[in-house]
């Protein structure tokens, strides 16, 4: 469970986030949607502790970074997994080494235990024949899978994904979305996903937060989004002709 209270973030006087209040539940995929440049990545990086908020607090199971001691903070870090927009795989390591990396850094597992766990998660993301390839040698969709595998290998309680299906073909994007949804359910993870992909909104939006102009303009889920009366949200979500038709159908109750 993550709670965000009055979160502000500015860079050199320009305010990007202007007071965000929301919360994210375990076992649920929560989506942050909004146009490019609306501050989704900045918000996620604040949650991750990569950006220090200018004002406001973020609570992880009722504790904020501020009340954590150093060791507690690194413990929290070890409970977080992150899938970066470009994958952020280490290019100097093979697929297998990338996934094993968090285990080697932070656990006292034996080599055999690590091998088991790495094989297990690589199987989980349906990627078992690319172990010795380097990130530059595999496709974008495969890189995303490796990145997800690396994020979950240490069994995190919090999973963050920055546009996990940008740059992927629709088919692969759907597979990645489903993977994130399933993993969240299986392990009761609190998952927060940034996206501007409307497919994801309808497929996995168990909670949806619409970010616009540095504040949350609308909050809800994929079941009620077609009834939203926020103009910006409607023009954002239903901008394409296809989705305009989807909305009409949804409102008719299909």
């Amino acid at each position, binding site marked *: 469970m993550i709670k965000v209270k009055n979160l502000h973030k500015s860079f050199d006087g320009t305010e990007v986030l202007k007071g965000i209040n929301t919360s994210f539940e375990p076992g649920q995929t929560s989506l942050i949607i909004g146009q490019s440049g609306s501050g989704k990545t900045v918000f996620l990086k604040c949650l*991750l502790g990569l950006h220090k908020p200018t004002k406001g607090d973020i609570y992880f199971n009722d504790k904020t970074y501020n009340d954590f001691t150093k060791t507690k903070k690194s413990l929290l870090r070890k409970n977080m997994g*992150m899938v*970066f927009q470009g994958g952020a795989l280490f290019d100097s390591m093979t697929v297998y080494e990338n996934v094993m990396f*968090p285990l080697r850094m*932070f656990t006292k597992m034996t080599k055999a235990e690590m091998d088991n766990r790495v094989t297990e998660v690589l199987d989980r993301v349906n990627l078992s024949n690319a172990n010795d390839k380097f990130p530059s040698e595999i496709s974008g969709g495969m890189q995303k899978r490796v990145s997800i595998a690396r994020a979950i290998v240490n069994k995190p309680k919090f999973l963050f994904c920055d546009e996990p299906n940008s740059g992927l073909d629709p088919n692969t994007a759907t597979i990645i979305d489903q993977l994130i949804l399933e993993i969240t359910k299986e392990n009761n993870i609190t998952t927060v996903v940034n996206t501007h992909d409307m497919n994801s909104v309808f497929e996995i939006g168990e909670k949806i937060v619409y970010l616009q102009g540095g504040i949350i303009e609308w909050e809800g889920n994929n079941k009620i989004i077609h009834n939203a009366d926020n103009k910006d949200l409607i023009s954002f979500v239903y901008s394409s002709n296809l989705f305009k038709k989807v909305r009409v159908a949804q409102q008719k109750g299909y």
Partner: protein
Amino acid sequence: MNYIESIGQYFMMLGDLFKKMTKGSVLRRLIIQEINDLMTNSLGIVVFISFFIGAVVSIQMALNLSNPLIPKSLIGYAARQSIILEFAPTFISIIMAGKVGSFITSSIGTMRVTEQIDALEVMGINSLNYLVFPKIIAMLFYPFLIAVSMFIGIIGAYLAAVIGGFLSSEAFLTGMQQDFIPFQVAYAFIKTFVFAFILATVPSFHGYYMKGGALEVGRASTTSFVWTSVIIIVANYVITQILLS
């Protein structure tokens, strides 16, 4: 960003990079990798350049020593002095600012723009320690590289002088051993250590704090080369002033 701010940020980086050490077993692999990338892979070019610079230095000396009253052995002496005191430690370090320096800046810079550094930080790793500390340790082997450069340079000087028929082998060797002052070798290696530290940290700084994309990585490498060379030249002047005068 203004210079004062950058200098401050550089020294803060030096402070931060020794905090929260990376796990020993991981660190050991990183250091071995860096020794390979930074040192072993530079051996070829260092040998090549040192040999020919040594040769040219001694030919120049020979051609300019036309006064019959000055003993020919001076060629050996002058070649030794210029190679040990300047050509090996300083000139090779400038070459390394181009080779090792731009490699460091572009590899760390690429990790920055592709969010690999953020990925390390998210895991709770001190990315500065993880990335820069192994490079500093690897650069502790730099004096070895410079010793090789001195040795090869003097061989180049000897061969060029003797094969070129400027003086006899005995005369060169006599000159080479003349007025040998051990402190001058110490001076050369003290500055080599300082240059090694500059070569490891200044390019790292330029890569680590860069912003932007692939184009900026290229730009950062160029800026890094310029600054690393400038700092080496200035440090060389300061160290020489302090130690030798």
